[in-house]
């Protein structure tokens, strides 16, 4: 039997949308379906390791990072965007009723009370179930992200050609 395939592209950095994406990814993967998750723009935020407000980037390792980044065109905007857009699965805002950060805190309490998995748990379990994580290369380059900044190992940094091939082979593509 041919393996069924699903691709999910997460663009949003909101807690509710990231939760949807990871619940679907886990559901499909549990049923034995081959899942590939793509991340663009703010979608990375849920996979980022949280850093302190004024912690500037760790020393860049050119040998490793030039594989997917153009370091010559880096400027002050990359550290700036990293400072302003710190991400972290436990610190994402809600798309509605954010209430200056109170919304997500109450939302997480609600999930816990109802026995629903939190985002970090879902990310870990997606990784354990063999979901593939693929990252958009230009977003990595423009926003100055390194694969070492992410909480999941084994990510691939790829371009739109690979995305097109993946989605054409898949039965379903979700864009969140």
């Amino acid at each position, binding site marked *: 039997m041919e393996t069924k395939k699903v691709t999910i592209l997460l663009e949003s950095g909101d807690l509710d949308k990231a939760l949807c994406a990871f*619940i679907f990814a*886990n*559901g499909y*993967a*549990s*049923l*034995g*379906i081959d899942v590939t998750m793509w991340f663009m723009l703010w979608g990375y935020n849920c996979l980022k390791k949280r850093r302190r407000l004024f912690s500037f980037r760790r020393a860049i390792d050119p040998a490793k990072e030039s594989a997917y980044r153009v370091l010559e065109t880096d400027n002050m905007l990359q550290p700036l965007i990293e400072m302003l857009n710190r991400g972290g699965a436990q610190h994402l805002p809600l798309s509605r009723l954010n209430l200056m950060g109170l919304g997500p805190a109450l939302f997480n309490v609600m999930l816990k009370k*109802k*026995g*629903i*998995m939190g985002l970090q748990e879902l990310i870990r*379990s997606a990784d*354990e*179930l063999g979901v593939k994580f693929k990252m958009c290369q230009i977003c990595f380059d423009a926003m100055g992200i390194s694969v070492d900044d992410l909480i999941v190992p084994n990510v691939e940094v790829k371009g739109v050609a690979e995305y097109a091939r993946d989605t054409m082979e898949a039965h379903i593509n979700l864009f969140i």
Partner: protein
Amino acid sequence: MHADKEINVLGKACPMPLIALAKEVRAMQQGQTVRITGNDPIFEESIVEFCREGCHEIVETTREGKTVSIVIKKTG
């Protein structure tokens, strides 16, 4: 009935039962059985769907109030 493995997901909501079952079934040998117990309103539906998709066999289903206990045999 006796099952080779036991999973308890009482109080856990979707998709937790599915994930726990998928992880357990992957580690099992063909023909082994697992008992999963839960009380989520859509628990039984999810497990039936899992078995249909993976071609596994449901050996036994017991209901006690809201708690449902299902024994699955890995055949797929």
